[in-house]
Structure formats: structure tokens, C-alpha cells
């Protein structure tokens, strides 16, 4: 791909061109992504810190996420594996849309962006499904000390599922971090789907065909790949380790 050719470093700073050989919009998207990546980096580092602190009572992901749609058996991590596959797949369709944009191939851009949106929406739905099962919990539940408002003390009680105060599977901190980080990521995916859809409509309308280039697709693609990038880390730190 002839995206950019290296130029003489002396010449690069002489003015009349960008020393980065990149358009303003794309550069700013990169800078936004760096700041967003720092946010996620901070969240994951903080997660690691708390997890280390409560290592002995931290739940194991394979005991928590065992459900798979329409299947009765316990299939640990199978569903999250599928979700990861869907997101990586949608990343590929996105980059294929960008590639088609570089050839001004409108039909292919429409096709690949459509599949990207489908993949993204499926991922968000899967996450909602996973949250649902995490919140509802197992049939047996688990015994915990729960604060009783009337008695003014802690009483033993069977709790089901997880929320911000009690967690059937382990310490409440696990649920707090799970909801916050996957929620923050899920919101990124959701906004990605919305932005992708807006750009998709513009492609259909022929806005970029008139403009002569599909750089908007490339910019939204950068954001979309970033969402995939974050998921790669979330997947490792929440489900694998």
C-alpha cells in the first residue's frame, strides 16, 4: 500500500506539507485514541492492583461465565470465545471496507461496512446477554453476609448473581470492575456502531464518492479497530488470567 512515502527529514520540516504525511483529521483521531487508550490502560492497571489485593477470594472466570445460548451444558468461556471471534471478524470487515475505499469501490465499501455494523451489534447484544446471566446468577446461589437495614447488622443470606454490593461468585470488587470496564468498553462498541451507521448512510448517499475519497471510512475504522484492540486486553485480563 502506498500510504505514505518516507521523505527527507530536512525537507519534511520546511513547510508546505505535513511532516507526518497524514491529514489533520486522521492525526487527531490517533491522538484521541491515545488518550482513550490511556483511560483503558489506567482502568486495567487498577483492576490488576485490586485483583492482586483480593487474590485469594477473586473468582475464576471459568466458574463464572459458563453459559452458552440454547445449550444446557456448562461450557466455560465458550461464549466469550465466540464474542471475541465476532469482534475480530468485524475488525477484518472494517479494514476491508477501508481497503475498498482506497480503490473508490463504493459497492464493496457498502458491503463490508454493513457486515461490520452487523458484527458490532451482535457483540453488544452478546455482552448484554452475558451481563444478564452474571446479574441473575445460578439457581443455587451462595451464602453471604448481607447488611440488614432493620437489624442494623449483617445477616447470613443466600444471594443470587452479582451486583454492585453482593456477588455470588466472589468479592464484590470483581463485579464492580467487571461492570465498569466491560460496560465502558461496551459503550465504546455501541457508539462505534452508531458512528459506523452514520458513515454507512453517507456512503449510501454518495457523499464520499462526490468528495473523491473515503477517508471518513478510514477514520471511523481507526476507532473501530481500537475498540477491538481494547477487547483483546479485556478478554485476557478478565477471562483468561
Amino acid at each position, binding site marked *: 500500500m*502506498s500510504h505514505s512515502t518516507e521523505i527527507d527529514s530536512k525537507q519534511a520540516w520546511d513547510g508546505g506539507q505535513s511532516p507526518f504525511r497524514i491529514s489533520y483529521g486522521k*492525526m487527531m483521531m*490517533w491522538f484521541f485514541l491515545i488518550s482513550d487508550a*490511556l483511560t483503558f490502560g489506567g482502568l486495567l492497571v487498577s483492576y490488576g492492583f485490586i485483583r492482586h489485593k*483480593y487474590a485469594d477470594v477473586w473468582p475464576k472466570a471459568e466458574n463464572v461465565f459458563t453459559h452458552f445460548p440454547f445449550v444446557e451444558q456448562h461450557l466455560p468461556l465458550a461464549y466469550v470465545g465466540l464474542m471475541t471471534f465476532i469482534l475480530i471478524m468485524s475488525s*477484518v470487515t472494517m479494514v476491508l471496507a477501508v481497503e475498498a475505499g482506497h480503490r473508490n469501490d463504493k459497492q464493496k465499501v457498502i458491503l463490508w461496512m454493513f457486515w461490520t455494523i452487523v458484527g458490532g451489534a451482535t457483540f453488544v447484544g452478546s455482552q448484554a446477554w452475558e451481563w444478564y446471566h452474571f446479574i441473575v446468577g445460578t439457581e443455587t446461589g451462595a*451464602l453471604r453476609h448481607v447488611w440488614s437495614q432493620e437489624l442494623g447488622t449483617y445477616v447470613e443470606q443466600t444471594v443470587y448473581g452479582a451486583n454492585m454490593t453482593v456477588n455470588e461468585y466472589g*468479592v464484590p470488587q470483581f463485579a464492580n470492575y467487571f461492570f465498569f470496564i466491560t460496560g465502558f468498553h461496551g459503550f465504546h462498541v455501541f457508539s462505534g456502531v452508531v458512528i459506523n451507521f452514520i458513515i454507512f448512510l453517507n456512503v449510501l448517499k454518495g457523499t464520499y464518492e462526490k468528495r473523491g475519497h473515503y477517508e471518513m471510512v478510514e477514520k471511523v475504522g481507526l476507532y473501530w*479497530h481500537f475498540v477491538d484492540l481494547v477487547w483483546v486486553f479485556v478478554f485476557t485480563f478478565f477471562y483468561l488470567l
Partner: protein
Amino acid sequence: MSEFHDDYPSYEHMAHHSEEEGKKARRTLWNVFWIMLAITVFELIIGSMAPSHGWSGTLWLKVLFIGLTIAKAAAIVMWFMHLGHEVKFFKYIVLVPYVLFMSYTIFIILDEGVYSSDQENRTKVDPILIKQQRDLKAGHGHHEQSGSEHHEKPTETSHH
């Protein structure tokens, strides 16, 4: 950009490529995808084998998973996000500050994490949960961490 007629080059149009180049680019992208899929499947297989083989929580497993994650991340950034195609100087502008800052943050938790594992130094944990986890580790009631067994009533709740 038709609206502006200055001497600046149009980087938007410079990104265009021919049918031939496109074919090559697509082949690369699909190869990257297959490699990433293989890594993910491998991770899941190792992850599902870990508990029964006693690998859970071992250092080599953590290093393996984090290493593979960084490999996948690098593939996404370099090929999917085309950072590999950008000018060298821009590549460093993006990567160097981030890598420096994250290395610093990770160094801090690895260093300060020593204090955090101090059992006395954390918010009190439900004693029932501690007992359940201990039973789980001891091996009995592997699938019954759900507390249906009889629990001794703790003599004192350490909540406040």
C-alpha cells in the same frame, strides 16, 4: 479537496491505490486475521485446560497470555490500523509516549502491589467467602462453591 486550491498535497487522495495493490493488501489482511484467530483459539484451549492441569495462576501461563495479547495488539495496530504504513516519525509520536506511560504505571503497581497483598491492609472480606474459597482450594465441593453445604456460623463478623 476541491474547495481549497493551495499547494498542500492531499493526503486523503495519496491513500488511494490500484486494483493490483488492493489485491496484495487484502491477502495480507486475511493472513493477519487467520493468525489472530489461531492465537485466540490457542489461548482458549490452553485456558480451558489450565484448571485440570494445575496451570492456573502460574507465572509462565500469565507471561504466555500477556505475550500473546501484546502480539495480537501489535497486529491490530500495525496492519488493521495501518500504523505500519505511516511515516516513521508519526509512528513514534503515537507509540513512544503511550509505551513510556504504561510501563511507568505497570512498574508502579508491580512495586506497590507488595503492600496491597497485605491481608490486614484491605477492606474486610466476608468470612463465609474466605471459607468457601478455602474449601474450593482444598478440593472438596469443587462445583458447590454456591454455599449449599453447611457452614459453621462465624463467631464474629468482621464487618463494621
